[in-house]
């Protein structure tokens, strides 16, 4: 589904990504872990071209994203949802409008269809009673669940999660991870940057360890956590587990 080849990203003098090559298959749940500044968020943001790669190839369902024009890029992003660390809900719109804005404005659904979809998604994320409220009336965990519902309203083929629980109070992490587990069980293709090792161990079909702009190790979670090979990964795991 997503194919990445020799991906490099530089910010001026800084060389953030130093040749990433990997493939994400349909239905996979890829969890990316690594220390701060390892480039994992930048890598994720390159996947939907919120960051423009300096060189390399990213293919989404066979099409090269790095050379796309804006129109093609927007079409790809419709199929590629993203959940941010700080939610980025639209504060001036009700929860319902947050969810329905994109599908309606892009002409994918009528307002009525989108409203029905929003009701269904709100039920799924357990926030049916919040439809007419505004984002700032919700707790962090609720906001993130709405952000996930907003992405799902576009019927994406893949969801990218950029540290979805890092900005949450500890007691709210669980509700968001629970929802992500549900999505994974339903077969959603997911790429998750996170520090939640428990989630990686239980949900991931593959775990990637990034350090210093490179993939140092990738494996299925059992072997990844019980028998790490790379010395940097061993050191990292010994600190976080």
């Amino acid at each position, binding site marked *: 589904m997503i194919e990445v080849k020799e991906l490099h990203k530089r910010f001026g003098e800084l060389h953030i990504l130093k040749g990433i090559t990997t493939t994400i298959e349909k239905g996979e749940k890829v969890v990316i872990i690594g220390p701060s500044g390892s480039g994992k968020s930048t890598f994720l943001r390159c996947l*939907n071209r*919120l960051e423009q790669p300096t060189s390399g190839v990213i293919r989404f369902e066979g099409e090269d994203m790095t050379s796309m024009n*804006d*129109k093609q890029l*927007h*079409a790809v*992003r*419709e199929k*590629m*949802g*993203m959940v*941010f660390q*700080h939610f*980025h*809900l*639209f*504060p*001036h719109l009700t929860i319902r409008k947050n969810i329905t*804005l*994109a599908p309606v*404005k*892009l002409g994918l659904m009528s307002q009525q269809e989108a409203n029905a979809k929003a009701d269904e998604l709100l039920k799924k994320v357990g926030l049916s009673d919040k439809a007419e409220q*505004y984002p*700032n*009336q919700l707790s962090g965990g609720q906001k993130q669940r709405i952000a996930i519902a*907003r*992405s799902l309203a*576009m019927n994406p083929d893949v969801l990218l999660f950029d540290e979805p629980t890092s900005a949450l109070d500890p007691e709210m992490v669980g509700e968001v991870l629970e929802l992500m587990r549900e999505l994974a069980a339903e077969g959603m293709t997911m790429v998750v940057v996170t520090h939640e090792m428990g989630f990686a161990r239980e949900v991931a079909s593959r775990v990637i360890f990034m350090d210093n702009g490179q993939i140092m190790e990738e494996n299925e979670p059992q072997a990844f956590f019980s028998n790490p090979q790379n010395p940097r990964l061993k050191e990292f795991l010994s600190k976080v587990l």
Partner: protein
Amino acid sequence: MNFFTQFGDKLYSTFIEDDRWMYLADGLKTTLIVTFFAVIVGVILGFLLAVIRATHDKTGRLKFLNFLAKIYLTVIRGTPVVVQLLIIYFVIFASINVDKIFVAVLAFGLNSAAYVAEIVRSGIMSIDNGQFEAGASLGLNYTRTMIHIILPQAIRNILPALANEFIVLLKETSVAGYIALTDLTKGGDIIRSATYEAFLPLLAVALIYLIMVMLLSWLVSRLERRLSKSDRG
């Protein structure tokens, strides 16, 4: 007793005799018309300039338009509005017989646009970049993101500053007399030159401006209260 009769006589000669109060009434009408349409010109052009400037700052596109916008802002904000008014009337429309109200609307509108543009631009730039990214990640293009996500939030943030700009504009139109347009200020001045009595007509003019500004300020503060109330958290 003498003082009161004298004062009564002055009131009579200033406002009642020859229906002189009409100068103030007609002048006020002109002032309001010029301000109203200048605000419309200022808002439309100001938003356009602001979106050009902000788009360039955010995306690096529209280089040439941004360059023109910057020159416009520099020139308009760097020269007095009276001079701009005179140039438009006596230079640009010198050979054409043109309605003075139209000239005044154009001059004050073009001038106000520059200030509105900077207010709106600061409003757009104050919106968290995450809002742009959230829009983009949902497949919305830049224009749609701007219209449906960024501008509604930006406008809400800048409404008080924008309203204050309109109050300033209302007072600035008092120089319209330079092109012999009979606005409120000029109306008072005509009475002064007819009666050789300066105090009462000018005091009346000042009072009328003051009342209008206080009224507008009151509306602005009500607006601010409403906004902060609906600003949940």
